[in-house]
């Protein structure tokens, strides 16, 4: 899937989740925020990441 297709898919998923958790009226009010969020998610999803890169939760405080 190309980047724009992925962004549209994320927007649709976010909209569906927002309707389910927040109600259709509130999801509609959040339409622009959902579009913005879909853009961020696309960047996170497509950025090249090392397969061995584990997540840092508490940022390894080197304690």
């Amino acid at each position, binding site marked *: 899937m190309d980047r724009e297709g992925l962004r549209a898919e994320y927007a649709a*998923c*976010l909209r569906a*989740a*927002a309707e389910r*958790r*927040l109600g259709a009226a*509130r999801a509609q009010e*959040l339409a622009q*925020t*959902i579009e913005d*969020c879909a*853009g*961020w*998610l696309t*960047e*996170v*999803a497509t*950025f090249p*990441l*090392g397969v061995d*890169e*584990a*997540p*840092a*939760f*508490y*940022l390894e*405080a*080197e*304690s």
Partner: protein
Amino acid sequence: MSLHTLDAVDAARAIREKVLSPVDLVEALLERIERIDGRIQAWALVDRDGARRAARQATDEAARGTFRGPLHGVPFGAKDIFYSAGLRTEAGSKAMADFVPDYDATSVARLKAAGAILLGKLHTTEFATTDPAPTRNPWSLVCTPGGSSSGSAAAVAARMIPLAFGTQTIGSNVRPASYCGLVGVKPTFGRISTRGVIPLSYTQDHVGLMARSVEDVALALSVAAGHDPDDPSSSRVPVPDYLAGLTRRRAPRIGLLREFFERAGADVADITAQAVNRLARAGAQIEEAKMPPTFRAVAAAAYVITRSETASAHAERFALKADLYRPGIRSSIEMGMVIPGDLYVRALRIRRQFRREMRPLLERYDCLLTPTTPTPAPEGMATGDASFQLPWSISGLPSITVPCGLTTSGLPLGIQLVSGQFTEAPLLAAAAWCEDILGRASAPSL
């Protein structure tokens, strides 16, 4: 000299030498607040009775030659998301109306244990996000002081307090400090305990400090930093004497991050470049440095991490009081509720990759340098652009802003220095050296 203009180190020294009484200092600051805070609106709550009581006790102890610590008798303020035992802590939110914690945040408790006097609580944007505080910038009342630590920056700049706690999740301590002509430090993640600080993003919340000199933030950081067993993110790395470390200041090796200069407005780029030239003429070794590839993704990753963690931190309160939340924080929580979990974890992986890629750059230089903000403090209520702080918040790296000049319209600008994790001592020494060359910001005329 008017007592309200005393910096923290000078006040502490004068109290120890018994030429200044904490009672007189507190009264001078309360009078200053009474006179000008109607215009600035930095304070959410001034604890007049508590501060006077503590000042009398500090004065009595000093007279007997008893000093609790290096900040004995020195007043400070705390952003209104820091718990303060017996004092309202409302985080700028109706959802927290009349909440009174029964214990102090660890950071507040540490300053008190060192003899400092909590004068009151300082306005914040709602829950330290974007819905603005009423506070105005002392350099120009039509401008924002920045946020979210709006009251902290404005109160220190307006000489209502010498020292204040702020916090930074994205850009909320260093940016307002710069907009108000202050020194502001955001130490390494885990350096200062966040226990008792209302959370926004568990893995990106940092406690920071603002003052009018590098010496002052160094002294306060020495006191506030250190392991807290009640904070799961608190580091055990030993805390050096940051103030003593400033005696080792020397011309630093600086990596200049050109990407930030290119994103800055023309006036900011010009004034910062002039400051860099002055540092170079004074002996700093300055080279251009380039941010690593993952820099491109850190804004997206930070968005995903903060929204997801904000939704978790606020889940219980939001379920009961959603209607009391203002629009910015409300939509942040709501988006956090629907972001897929796999992408939250992927954002955490991006963060780790970015930290790893930054390491060689940080090892090559004593510090990296950027303009602190892309523009001076903007007019209006919106709290400004946090993008120049975001990479150091997401990566947990220490950063500090030092004033570097005024725009033609008289608004302060700063340079931001960044270094490797837990290298606050050399970072502060480099900042003090830069401060020596560039001079301290003057006071706003009020």
